[in-house]
């Protein structure tokens, strides 16, 4: 009767339509949609956690003629994270977009983006994924430009174009697969895929196109300006969710579709690019002069860690080690999602109250906004990878498996990345400790601060310690 898979996509879409038609009610309708969607998403996750991986044939035709939606553990984990983060961003946005005008622009696009995210995580059809990618890309670029500055428009135009290049490339891969295998369903293609020129080309095209969207070094050039110039709630969504969606898709293709096609050399290539991303992104974050630019480069770096798992996953045979590695990967992705969203929301608060986000001049701001500073600190813990954040345990597994496989160089990258991350996070936090007048109270604007704080707290204290249930969830889909 109720199909949580379809609802997770259809509800935000419905909300977007209503908000488009009734712009005067956008805030109320938007929040209502946000709440309902999150409830559905969590319900979906809990169902999968209970051991049932979900499947739904839209239109009732069944694959390969119709389109299916599917939720295994991996999808459910990301759906849960994405929807919680999106809910927090929504609450924050009710405060951030104060005026009616920008609020009207924000809500319909934001709900469309949300719909695309859920659709992407749950999709089981290769072409449907293309449509979702485009919906995601278009709405994200439009949202990113809402600041109205020239920099934002320029950066997001570039983001849009790069995204289009990526999705076109992806689509050619899909066309090749359809040519050779006559179906668009992910599982069906996976079942019949054999090594050969088609598989190879499709792998290169699809993963290559997605890497552009995932901003893997050196294809990250578009990300920092786009994420740094967007309004803070949008930056949070872009860094925490939109990039994650592309990475999720790479992972999905890597593990499910091209399992057996991918070689260790291919994994090594992506791992090395990931390592490059960690070092370069962290270095640029350290040199960044603005808080949001720092956060954006930090995203480049964190994306790198996720890709460093690929060579290890490819080299590890099925078994408990591989499952552990996968759990760690998801743990890292979730932690980063929460942390980066919290970080950007807090950065937005700082920017709003001081009128700028230049790190050098943050001294007073950090002191007068204790909640925002605290949020930056907690999220920073997760970004550095200090315990008990999920990042710490994920890195533990990553380094452990790297050493066990004799690929010790990844450990060196993790070490360097951790130290650089500590340097760039504490460069900001150090500004908090000066002799400014003491704040009288912890919260100054609860509606915008509490969501950010909760996200950051979840990243630093929650996700890591919940590794066990997450592992159960991931195992549930198999």
């Amino acid at each position: 009767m109720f199909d949580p898979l379809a609802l997770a996509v259809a509800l935000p879409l419905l909300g977007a339509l209503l908000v488009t038609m009734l712009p005067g009610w956008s805030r109320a309708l938007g929040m209502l949609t946000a709440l309902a969607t999150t409830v559905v998403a969590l319900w979906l996750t809990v169902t999968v956690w209970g051991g049932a991986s979900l499947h739904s044939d839209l239109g009732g035709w069944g694959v390969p003629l119709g389109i299916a939606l599917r939720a295994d553990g991996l999808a459910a984990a990301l759906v849960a994270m994405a929807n919680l983060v999106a809910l927090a961003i929504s609450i924050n946005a009710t405060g951030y977009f104060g005026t009616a005008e920008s609020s009207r622009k924000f809500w319909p696009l934001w709900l469309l983006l949300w719909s695309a995210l859920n659709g992407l995580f749950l999709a089981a059809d290769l072409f449907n994924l293309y449509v979702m990618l485009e919906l995601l890309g278009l709405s994200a670029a439009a949202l990113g430009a809402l600041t109205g500055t020239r920099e934002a428009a320029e950066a997001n135009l570039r983001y849009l174009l790069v995204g289009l290049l990526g999705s076109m490339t992806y689509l050619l891969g899909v066309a090749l697969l359809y040519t050779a295998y006559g179906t668009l369903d992910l599982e069906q293609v996976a079942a019949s895929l054999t090594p050969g020129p088609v598989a190879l080309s499709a792998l290169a095209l699809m993963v290559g196109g997605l890497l552009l969207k995932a901003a893997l070094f050196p294809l990250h050039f578009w990300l920092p300006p786009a994420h740094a110039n967007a309004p803070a709630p949008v930056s949070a969504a872009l860094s925490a969710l939109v990039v994650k969606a592309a990475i999720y898709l790479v992972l999905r293709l890597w593990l499910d579709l091209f399992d057996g096609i991918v070689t260790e050399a291919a994994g090594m290539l992506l791992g090395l690019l990931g390592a490059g991303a960690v070092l370069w992104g962290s270095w640029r974050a350290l040199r960044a002069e603005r808080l949001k630019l720092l956060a954006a480069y930090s995203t480049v770096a964190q994306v790198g860690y996720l890709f460093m798992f690929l060579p290890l996953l490819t080299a590890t045979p099925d078994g408990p080690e591989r499952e552990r590695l996968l759990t760690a990967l998801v743990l890292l992705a979730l932690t980063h999602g929460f942390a980066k969203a919290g970080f950007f929301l807090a950065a937005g608060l700082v920017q709003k109250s001081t009128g700028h986000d230049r790190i050098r001049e943050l001294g007073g701001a950090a002191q007068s906004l204790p909640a925002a500073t605290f949020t930056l600190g907690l999220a920073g813990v997760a970004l550095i990878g200090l315990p008990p954040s999920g990042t710490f345990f994920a890195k533990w597994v990553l380094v452990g498996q790297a050493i066990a496989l004799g690929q010790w160089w990844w450990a060196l990258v993790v070490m360097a990345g951790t130290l650089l991350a500590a340097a760039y996070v504490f460069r900001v936090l150090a500004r908090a400790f000066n002799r400014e007048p003491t704040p009288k109270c912890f919260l100054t604007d609860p509606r915008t601060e509490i969501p950010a704080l909760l996200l950051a707290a979840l990243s630093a204290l929650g996700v890591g310690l919940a590794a066990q249930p997450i592992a159960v969830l991931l195992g549930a889909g198999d």
Partner: protein
Amino acid sequence: MKASRLQTVLIPLLLSAIGAVLFWAFWSGVTGHEGERLAALALARVPESGASNPVTSVLLNFRAYDTLMELAVLLAALLGIWSLGPAAAPYQPAALLLNSLVSWVVPMLIIAGGYLLWIGGQAPGGAFQAGALLGAAGVTLALSGRPNAGLPDESWLRVLAALGTLVFVLIGLTLMFLGLGFLTYPPALAKALILTIETGATLSIGATLAAAFLGGQPRATRTAEP
């Protein structure tokens, strides 16, 4: 300079190599595939779909979900365009001769659009083509100097742009609540539902394309539109 010269040589070389691999892959994909792909399956089930044009069957029934999301993409583009600023100033009113031409062309386009929508169930045509013609009618009006391309003012335009998708998603959800599944049409109603959805979609597509052509948020109308 040196780098760019290197690029002008390297990029085509690289792309040629990629092209060779792609062609090889395409070759082996085409020759290696013995079956029918989805053609036979899809064609066999067209009669159950509520439309006799196979493409319409796929678009609005088998893969209706894709089409729904595609309408969402169109809407996202329009909203994005609106968020980037106001529409361009209207074109100068056209000369008298041209104007009378416009008053012929526009109704023709609208009628043709209606025909394509109607015929789409059986023959080539359908919501997108029909919507495109409506959009073209709007573009013609815009080019002849109508400030809002014959579109209603913003609040109604919003309704119009979202309407098709709204009808689509509401039908999908209703069917789900009825226990049939999201976008699962009962065979008896399929034809009517598809036509309803297509009608809404045509209007929305036409309005959206015309509004997109204006390139920004509609300005307050100065004169009443015909």
